[in-house]
C-alpha cells in the first residue's frame, strides 16, 4: 500500500506473473558487446573472429580514445564482429566456453587519479559510467562535478539494487571512495527512503546518502540528478548503478572486474517471472526460453516504459520485459486514421497526472511545451541538461504519446550538443 505522503510520482502496474523464489546464476551460451541504446560508438576491434578471449579481457577499444576498452563479458571465443559503416559498433558476439579464465589487471598504480582512470579504462569499466548532459560515457579525462550512485530503482518491475550489492558492502564502500577521488564534488548515493541507514560510507563525508521515495520517477537517475546536483554544459554529472560501484570496488581489490548483473525478467507473456544473476550482453532468448508462454511475443531489454526490443541485454539495463504481440492487424478506415494521427500531434494538457509523471521535480507543463515548441533555451533553464530519454519515458506513457516526448527530448539534446561543440 502506498500512502499519499510517500511523495510525488506514479506506480504504473504492468501485468506480470508471480515471481519464482530464489536467484539463479545463468551464463548464456552466447553473449554480445553492443553499444548503449541510442548511442553510436566508433571502435577498433582488438581481436579477430575465432580468437579465444578471457572474461574481462579487452575485445575492442574506442577508435579515437584507444585507452578506453570494451571487455568480454564471458570467457570464450569471438564468433562474429559486425561493424556498421564508419566502423560504428553494431555487435561483437562471443561464444562462451565452459572454462572461466578471467583477466587480471595490475592494481598497483591506482593510488592516484591517473592510475585509477587508466585501470578503469583498461578493464572495461569506463563504458559503465554515464555522463549528463547528453548521455554516453564520459571523455577519458573528464572530471565530474558530482557523481550520483543509484542504489534505488523505481521503474516498474526493476530488481532491488540492495539485493544486487548484498554481501558486497565493503567493495561498495571501496568503489565509492575511488569515485570520490575522480570527482571534484560530492558523491551522492540515492537510496530507498525505508533503508537510508546502514550504508557503508566514506570517512571524509564526501559521500552522502539521499533518501528517495518509492514512486517511479523518484528513483530515475535523471530526476535525482536534477534534484540534487543539476548537470550543466560545463558541469558534467556522472551516474552509475550501485552494483557497478561494488564491481569497481572489487576490481580495485582483486584486479578482476566482476561481470555479474542482477536482472529481473518480467512481463505479461511469461509463465513465471524470475530474477537471475547473469552478465552484461546476455542472450535474451536463452534467458527467457523456458519461461515464455507459447505464442508470439517480443523481447524487450529494459522496462516496459523505456525498454527497446533487442536480442542482447543492453549496457546498463537490468530488466527484461517479455510482452505478447498481437498479429491482429486490421486495416483502419481513413477517417479513423486521420483522427488518430493528426497532422500535428495533440498537445499535452497540464493535469496532475503530467506533474506526477515528472515527480513534481520541475514545472512539467512549461517543460513539455518547451520540448514541443523546440525552445532549447527554456528547456535548458527548466533542467533539460540533467535529463535523458529514459527519464521522460513515464510522462510519455502517462500521456499515451508512444515515445513522442522522448524523441523530442533526444532531438533537442542532439541539437544542443552540436551547437555547443561548434
Amino acid at each position: 500500500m502506498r500512502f499519499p505522503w510517500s511523495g510525488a510520482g506514479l506506480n504504473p502496474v504492468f501485468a506480470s506473473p508471480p515471481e519464482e523464489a530464489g536467484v539463479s546464476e545463468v551464463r548464456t551460451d552466447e553473449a554480445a558487446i553492443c553499444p548503449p541504446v541510442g548511442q553510436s560508438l566508433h571502435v577498433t576491434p582488438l581481436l579477430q573472429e575465432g580468437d579465444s578471449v578471457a572474461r574481462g579481457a579487452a575485445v575492442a577499444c574506442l577508435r579515437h580514445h584507444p585507452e578506453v576498452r570494451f571487455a568480454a563479458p564471458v570467457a570464450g571465443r569471438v564468433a562474429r564482429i559486425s561493424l556498421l559503416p564508419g566502423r560504428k559498433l553494431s555487435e561483437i558476439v562471443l561464444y562462451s566456453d565452459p572454462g572461466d579464465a578471467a583477466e587480471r589487471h595490475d592494481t598497483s598504480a591506482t593510488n592516484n587519479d591517473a592510475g585509477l582512470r587508466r585501470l578503469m579504462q583498461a578493464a572495461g569499466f569506463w563504458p559503465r559510467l554515464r555522463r549528463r548532459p547528453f548521455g554516453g560515457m564520459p571523455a577519458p579525462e573528464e572530471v565530474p562535478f558530482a557523481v550520483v550512485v543509484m542504489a534505488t530503482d523505481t521503474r516498474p518491475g526493476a530488481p532491488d539494487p540492495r539485493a544486487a550489492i548484498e554481501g558486497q558492502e565493503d567493495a561498495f564502500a571501496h568503489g565509492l571512495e575511488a569515485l570520490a577521488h575522480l570527482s571534484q564534488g560530492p558523491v551522492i548515493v540515492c537510496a530507498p527512503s525505508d533503508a537510508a541507514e546502514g550504508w557503508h560510507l566514506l570517512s571524509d563525508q564526501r559521500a552522502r546518502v539521499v533518501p528517495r521515495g518509492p514512486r517511479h520517477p523518484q528513483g530515475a537517475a535523471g530526476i535525482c540528478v536534477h534534484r540534487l546536483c543539476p548537470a550543466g554544459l560545463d558541469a558534467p554529472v556522472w551516474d552509475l548503478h550501485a552494483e557497478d560501484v561494488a564491481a569497481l570496488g572489487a576490481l580495485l581489490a582483486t584486479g578482476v572486474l566482476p561481470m555479474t548483473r542482477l536482472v529481473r525478467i518480467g512481463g505479461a507473456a511469461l509463465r513465471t517471472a524470475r530474477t537471475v544473476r547473469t552478465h552484461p550482453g546476455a542472450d535474451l532468448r536463452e534467458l527467457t526460453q523456458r519461461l515464455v508462454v507459447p505464442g508470439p511475443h517480443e523481447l524487450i531489454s529494459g522496462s516496459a516504459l523505456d525498454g527497446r526490443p533487442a536480442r542482447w541485454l543492453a549496457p546498463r539495463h537490468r530488466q527484461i520485459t517479455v510482452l505478447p504481440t498481437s498479429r491482429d492487424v486490421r486495416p483502419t478506415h481513413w477517417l479513423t486514421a486521420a483522427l488518430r494521427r493528426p497532422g500535428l500531434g495533440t498537445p499535452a494538457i497540464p493535469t496532475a497526472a503530467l506533474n506526477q509523471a515528472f515527480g513534481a521535480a520541475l514545472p512539467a507543463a512549461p517543460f513539455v511545451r518547451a520540448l514541443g515548441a523546440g525552445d532549447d533555451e527554456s528547456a535548458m533553464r527548466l533542467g533539460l541538461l540533467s535529463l535523458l530519454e529514459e527519464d521522460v519515458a513515464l510522462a510519455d506513457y502517462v500521456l499515451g504519446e508512444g515515445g513522442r516526448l522522448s524523441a523530442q527530448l533526444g532531438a533537442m539534446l542532439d541539437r544542443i550538443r552540436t551547437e555547443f561543440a561548434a
Partner: protein
Amino acid sequence: MTRGMWTRETVALMLLAAYLPLALFWAWHGGAEALGRFALAAVIVAVWHVVFLLARAQAPSLSGMIVALAVAMLAPEDLGVIRLALGLSFGVVLGELVFGGWGRNVVHPATVTLSFLGFGFPAFAWPGFDAPVAWAAIPAALIGIATGTMPAAVLAGAAGLGAAALLLGAVPQAVLFAACIVLVLLVADPVASAATTPGRWVNGALYAALVILFARGWAGAAPAQIAVSAALLTSLVAPLLDEAALALWTARRKGRHGRT
C-alpha cells in the same frame, strides 16, 4: 506498445464528467429551452471542428462540448441564432482553432465568445442563476480536483479569497453564484489557467479579487458579466503569472545549485 490514458481526449472526458452535475441542474431548471441552446451551440462548435479537421488535419476534440455548455449556460439571453452563431464562431475559431486546437490556445474559447457577445450586444440581458445550479459547482470542482484535470491551486486560491470576501460581506449573493459557476467552467480550465503551482494560486486569487472589485465598483453590471469579465482578464494575465513563477523557480535553483 502499452500506453497510459491521459491523452487530450481523456482529459476532455474527465472535465465533461466533472461538469455533469452542473449541467444536469442547469438543464433541470432551464428546461427545453436550455437544452435547445446547448444543442445549437454544440452543432456550431462541431461544424468548426470538422472544418478545421478537413482544412488543416487538426484533430477535433470533445472539449468543444465544454465550450458549448459554457456558452449555453452563460451567454446573454434571447440572442437568436445568428448572433449566437457569430459569437461562437469568433470565439471558437479565433480563440482556439487557429492556434492549433484545444491545448494550444491562450484563452478559453468560451470566455472569448462570451466577452464578444457581452460587449457586442449589450442590449441583451445576462442570465441569472438559481441557488441549486450554483451549489452544483461544488461537486464539479471536487470531481475535477479528484481526477486531477482541474488545477486545485486555482480553485483553492479563488475559494480562499472568496470565503474571506463572503465573511466580510463584500459580494452580493447573485454575484457569488455567477462567480462560482464561471470559476469551474472558465477559470479552472487546465489549459487557459496558469500552469505552475504558484502561478495557479495567484491566478485563482486574482480572479476572486477582480470579481470583488467589479462587484463593488462597477455600477450596473450584471453578475454573470462581472464574472466573465474577471475570467477574461485573469486568463490574459495567466502567462505573465507563469513567467513570474518560472523566474522565481529558476532564481531559487540558481541560488541553491549555482545553475539551473
